[in-house]
């Protein structure tokens, strides 16, 4: 009874090992062709995987060039494939007066940075994420329409408890009785982050929710919603804290003003760090195999990375929860009605 189970398990791990080695052998191969006999640079590989890119590098034999959209006052709007920046040996070359340097596009002659609106790997991930969210939740909404007055079914019954969790455990307790107004934003936020986190864990996927531009945009949205909905008592607390001596209010004022900005800043950093760090840990463990060039280390690293991957699944949910929870909390503080002063 025990043996087939063990055999199955080890077969599974071997499969994972093969998959990961497949991915990384391609990474190694690209290094070898580019720079002859250069030692394996783990940090470069890892950063390459967690950062944005103008092309989607699934494997060395399968690189998807993504469209580059650039705008500069000198040359106007230009759209072309990012494949134009590479010759047949994967060396970067200049194209049409633009040059690509560490994923930034500059004007070749003046070296001035251009406005880069390219569909990068993360933008493509963003589109996939948005499309998936639209597909899933429009069908969930359709399920609600179809099963009106009946028990939920299918996708609807899977997502309904999560929607209820967001409503009853995150938004309602933190915002209070005005919570309904913020539900659409909170649900979009929660599922955007959750789906983004989970999609980012797929092999070859872009690190969307671990990108600081993405987390910054989300944090800024929460910041704007919080402060545009701030009521009199909220601003009263910020600018003229009640219940403390006057001279102390002057001291508290800058602290409160800084506090306005540290809240979204913490949102931005927390999500970025949690997701990116997870990816870096997994990649780092896998890179051990290539640093040691050993099968034994490969097996061990695969096992550990499998374990970390499972933790990352957990983190994906936790970070979506935490971001939504803190957003609700900040908005709740802004709309809370004080009657005890």
């Amino acid at each position, binding site marked *: 009874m025990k043996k087939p189970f063990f055999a199955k398990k080890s077969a599974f791990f071997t499969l994972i090992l093969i998959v990961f080695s497949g991915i990384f052998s391609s990474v190694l191969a690209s290094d070898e062709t580019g720079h002859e006999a250069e030692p394996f640079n783990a940090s470069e590989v890892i950063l390459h995987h967690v950062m944005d890119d103008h092309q989607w590098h699934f494997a060395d034999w399968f690189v998807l060039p993504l469209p580059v959209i650039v705008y500069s006052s000198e040359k106007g709007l230009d759209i072309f494939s990012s494949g134009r920046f590479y010759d047949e040996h994967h060396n970067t070359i200049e194209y049409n007066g633009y040059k690509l340097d560490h994923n930034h596009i500059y004007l070749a002659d003046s070296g001035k940075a251009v406005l880069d609106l390219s569909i990068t790997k993360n933008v493509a991930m963003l589109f996939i994420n948005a499309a998936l969210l639209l597909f899933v939740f429009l069908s969930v909404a359709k399920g609600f329409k179809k099963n009106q007055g009946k028990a939920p079914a299918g996708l609807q019954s899977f997502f309904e408890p999560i929607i209820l969790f967001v409503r009853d455990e995150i938004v309602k307790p933190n915002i209070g009785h005005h919570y309904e107004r913020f539900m*659409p934003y909170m649900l979009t936020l929660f599922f955007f982050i959750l789906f983004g986190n989970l999609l980012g864990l797929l092999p070859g996927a872009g690190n969307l929710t671990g990108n600081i531009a993405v987390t910054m945009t*989300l944090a800024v949205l929460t910041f704007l919603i919080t402060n545009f909905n701030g009521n009199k008592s909220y601003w009263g607390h910020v600018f003229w804290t009640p219940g403390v001596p006057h001279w102390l209010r002057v001291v508290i004022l800058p602290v409160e003003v800084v506090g306005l900005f540290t809240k979204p800043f913490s949102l931005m950093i927390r999500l970025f760090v949690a997701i990116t760090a997870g990816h870096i840990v997994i990649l780092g463990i896998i890179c051990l195999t290539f640093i040691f060039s050993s099968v034994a280390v490969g097996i061990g690293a695969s096992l550990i990375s499998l374990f970390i991957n499972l933790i990352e699944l957990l983190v994906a949910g936790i970070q979506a929860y935490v971001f939504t929870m803190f957003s609700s909390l900040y908005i709740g503080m802004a709309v809370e009605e004080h009657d005890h002063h």
Partner: protein
Amino acid sequence: MDLLLPGEGLIIWQAVVFLGLFFLLARFAWKPILSSLKEREQSIQQALDSAEQAKKEMANLKADNEKLLREAREERDKILKEAREAANRLHDQAQADAKKTSDKIIEDARAVIQTEKNAALRDVKAQVAAFSLEVAEKLIRKNLADDKAQKDLAETYIKELKLN
């Protein structure tokens, strides 16, 4: 450190796509989903409330029934008690009446007897007096030949009268 610098292109795309996603989902997904959820919750709440109400009404009904039953029982007991009392009263009264009647009859009878007795006595006295007179007349007619005898007789009578 490029990792820590937000790229402007991604910020713009993220803002545009996220806001677009937000408006689409808010309009076509969250609105119907949240309203259906609310509707369902309300209908469940209503069903629970009406069940509770029905239960309460049932309990009220039962209490009413019990109250009615209790009242009926009390009423019955009261009626029975009254009937018993009335019967007793009637009985007592009848007894008293009978006693009174019998007493009266006895009294009357006694009175009649007394009258009859008196009448009879009076009769007897009258007859005794008549007999005495007759006897006296006969004696007087026979013995009034001599004075002495008359005198003795008269004295005896007088003695006798004094004794009476």
